[in-house]
């Protein structure tokens, strides 16, 4: 049997066992595995969790009645809005928003109360400066509830008939939109038509953390052997590059899944991110993404001469991932060249995939356009890693 050596499951398993044992003894790495997601979640989660309150709000009111006063009062009481200004007209409101003096302008049209009483379902318009959606998001999410409470408080007695269509099932957030409401509140988000909400941050964070830890840790996997001098021994043994590399990756798949679980648990029970999708699909997506990152790490590991170089490569890789994957800036809003780069980064696809599954409940058909690039990426990079693996000490 000459020439190419065949893949041996027994040798591969030997490498897996060895890596597991070494990892088990490496307390610092282990602490990092659990510590990084928790620390990141705490840092970013702080930004998520501080629901901004008392945001400056202006009122353009062309109609004064108990109902409109009650509505404005309820906004104030919700503590999200702080009414700071009365404005003469819509134009003045727009200008104040543009200058950044106000976050919201509430427009109550002329004849609002009369239309309400005639069951013409009038509408209050709230214009929001949505440049930073994490700021305005939760305030706007509260608006429907405010309107609902006004209806229940003001439309009583002889006016109770107007409540038709108001939701009985208070626990359902969708109930209000279900029937024709006595009046509605339409929200107009200015400056950021993308539907980015704060909930996007948590799934995005999952991608970030997995990228950082997976690439960094596997980047060290082979350079560590080289630096400790154990590579000479490993190379003198009959293991093939594919056995060594994939064997070394296996424990990190487990670590990646642990990290994903920590993030998901925190998202669900600490930050109350709504989950719409199938949890199995979430893990499958995470698994795909972990595999992609591990191949990046192991490629760096075979390219780098020492551990320092491996870490530098990992950071070099990490930066475009933060900026160009749609985590920080909306992907569609980036210039063409940036989108081209973004399109080869696995994090771009993972962000779409995980947001789709978690927040929209996407299924297979919707996910596939993000799944196959991840698979392709993994296979190609594993090939690159095997080719660049140095089989001698030269």
């Amino acid at each position, binding site marked *: *049997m000459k020439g190419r050596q065949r893949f041996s499951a027994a*040798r591969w398993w030997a490498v897996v066992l*060895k890596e597991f044992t*070494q990892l088990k003894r490496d307390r610092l790495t282990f602490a990092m595995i659990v510590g990084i997601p928790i620390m990141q979640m705490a840092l970013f989660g702080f930004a998520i969790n501080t629901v901004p309150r008392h945001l400056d709000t202006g009122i353009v009111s062309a109609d004064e009645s108990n109902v409109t006063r009650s509505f404005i009062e309820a906004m104030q009481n919700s503590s999200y809005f702080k009414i700071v200004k009365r404005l003469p007209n819509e134009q003045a409101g727009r200008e104040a928003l543009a200058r950044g003096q106000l976050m919201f302008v509430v427009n109550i049209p002329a004849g609002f109360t009369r239309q309400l009483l005639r069951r013409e379902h009038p509408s209050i318009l709230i214009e929001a400066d949505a440049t930073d959606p994490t700021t305005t998001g939760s305030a706007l999410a509260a608006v429907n509830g405010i309107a609902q409470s006004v209806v229940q408080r003001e439309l009583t007695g002889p006016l109770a008939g107007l409540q038709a269509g108001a939701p009985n099932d208070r626990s359902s957030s969708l109930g209000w939109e279900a029937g024709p409401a006595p009046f509605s509140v339409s929200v107009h988000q200015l400056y950021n038509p993308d539907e980015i909400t704060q909930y996007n941050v948590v799934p995005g964070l999952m991608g970030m953390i997995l990228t950082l830890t997976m690439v960094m840790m596997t980047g060290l996997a082979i350079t560590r052997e080289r630096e400790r001098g154990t590579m000479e021994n490993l190379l003198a*043994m009959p293991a093939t590059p594919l056995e060594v590399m994939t064997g070394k990756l296996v424990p990190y798949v487990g670590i990646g899944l642990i990290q994903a679980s920590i993030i998901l648990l925190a998202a669900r029970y600490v930050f109350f991110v709504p989950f719409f999708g199938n949890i199995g699909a979430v893990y499958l997506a995470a698994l795909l993404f972990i595999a992609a990152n591990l191949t990046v790490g192991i490629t760096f590991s075979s390219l780098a001469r020492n551990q320092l170089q491996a870490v530098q490569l990992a950071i070099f890789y990490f930066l475009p991932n933060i900026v160009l994957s749609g985590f920080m800036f909306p992907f569609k809003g980036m210039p063409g060249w940036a989108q081209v780069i973004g399109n080869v980064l696995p994090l771009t696809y993972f962000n779409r995939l995980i947001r789709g599954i978690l927040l929209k409940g996407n299924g297979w058909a919707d996910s596939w356009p993000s799944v196959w690039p991840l698979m392709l990426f993994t296979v190609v990079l594993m090939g690159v890693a095997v080719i660049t693996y140095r089989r001698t000490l030269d």
Partner: protein
Amino acid sequence: MTPAAQSGFAIDVQGLNKRFDGKHVVKDVSLRVRRGEIFGFLGPNGSGKTTTIRMMCGLLKPDSGTGTCLGYDILRDSAEIKRSVGYMTQSFSFWNDLTIAENLDFVARMYQIPGRRQAVERSLATLGMTSRARQLAGELSGGWKQRMALAACMLHSPQLLLLDEPTAGVDPRARRDFWDELQTLAAGGISVLVSTHYMDEAVRCHKLAYISAGTLLAQGTAEEIIEGQHLSTWAIRGDRLAELQEELRKKAAVAQTVTFGEVLHVSGTNAELLEREIEQTVVSSGRRAEKIDTDLEDVFIYLMGHAESNAGGNA
């Protein structure tokens, strides 16, 4: 029949060259090790022993040269060579964060040794380490690390052992046991290439090669190497040998003077002239001089000092 059995040589390499960043560290090295032979590889620090061994087992790619190990081509068949050769690295290269048993078990799995558990148990017992099996390799003393490494590279019963200073730092008794073991293995047909700096180990080898600054200066049995240098040697006893040494160094026929404890060895290639000069300086001063057989150590020290002038004189 394997190709190795046909050729009768466990190692047969010709014209190996290796440069590191333009520095020529192995120059045209050709070696032949027969089956069942213990072949000693000697030379001063940095002379290229480790580099040569690494080229033989596929860990370094020679810049030029050809050859076979156990009949397998060292350039093309490195996978087969790795499977059938046991290589012990000069510096400890097992995993410090694995226990002794785990290290051995990993090796056993890598070579897919049948009856793995028993093989590891046996190896531990031979080592006398059964009770310390669960100790981390990194916590072992230097000598015990060497012994563990040695046991590990013999675990898969290789046909050829490439041992790079296997007994460095090992105590005398363990060294003697180890050499007894090597002799038994060799008697059973296993070939051994072993690099060493110890003379008592060199004399136990069937064949020797001496390398200096990348060039092989001598190769053959101990006798052949000694005869090849045509040295005659005198042993001188008496007092104030240091003074005498100074004086002798100035003489034309004296190639080298080496003190071994109370005895001064004086060697030279021109036997007659040397004898006359010794009589003039030594006997006249009342010290005792006696012509002895040149030993291996005299030759090696001679080779070391005359590496440049002798560069072409391979035995």
